[in-house]
């Protein structure tokens, strides 16, 4: 298990859910996709999810699948209602200015260090 806090500086991420502590969230892997049914069909609980989809349904998908944090790539910033719902569900939301490929590469490296 890797602490989410370790990842934050590496992908230059901003935490949009200040009510949730990335120091307390751990993850075991990651899934990368912008198709919600693909995520529900193939992601595992305990993973983080990298996407550029930013509407409210991403929170429901993460919650149903057991995903601990959503990382928005390419500087995508979620709306206030998405942040509110995620905080309620205990799902951390991060934004990284990097592209999906680079974010994924850094996560891969962090997991395999």
């Amino acid at each position, binding site marked *: 298990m890797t602490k989410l806090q370790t990842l934050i500086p590496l992908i230059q991420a901003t935490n949009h859910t200040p009510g949730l502590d990335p120091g307390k969230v751990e993850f075991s892997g990651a899934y990368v996709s912008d*198709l*919600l049914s*693909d995520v*529900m069909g193939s992601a595992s609980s305990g993973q983080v999810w990298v996407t550029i989809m930013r509407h409210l349904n991403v929170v429901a*998908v993460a*919650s*149903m699948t*057991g995903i601990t944090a959503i990382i928005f790539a390419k500087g995508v910033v979620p709306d206030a209602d998405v942040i509110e719902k995620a905080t309620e569900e205990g799902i951390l939301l991060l934004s990284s200015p990097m592209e999906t490929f680079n974010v994924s590469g850094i996560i891969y490296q962090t997991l395999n260090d």
Partner: protein
Amino acid sequence: MGEYWNIKPELEDSVKQHFSAPPEAEVELEFEVPEKDFNTAGRGSSEVKDLLKRLGVDSETLRRIAVASYEAEINLAAHSKGGVMSCMIYDDLIHLRFLDKGPGIEDITQAMIPGYSTADELVREFGFGAGLGLPNIQKNSDALHIQSAKGSSTLLELLIFFSAP
């Protein structure tokens, strides 16, 4: 009238037993799922998931139930004129039923093929419509039953056992 069944072979007896003589449910819940409302769709699944979590259902079973249920709710919102989700919880299993107001599935076998979709642009904009909903429901269910015909309502029901007998 088209009908589709998929039952895990090792659970066939328990599934048949359940459908032929269903016992009284411990908990029964009902939720409206309106057409093209992707924010309301998912409320039922979320509530059921929270309840089962409190009842002590393990996290992997919880994930399977939540995913199958949410996909089915999204299907009602995306493809039907709206419908009702009913949830019956028993000692050893959950029975979920989704009954919509049409317009029905013309060819259920085709609808089960991963990647086949009739979703419109709006549905796709929301990140759905990849043709993976029904396959995901089947993958996570112990028993799946679909009954439909063009021009009529669709009934989709599924069983998931809390711990495989």
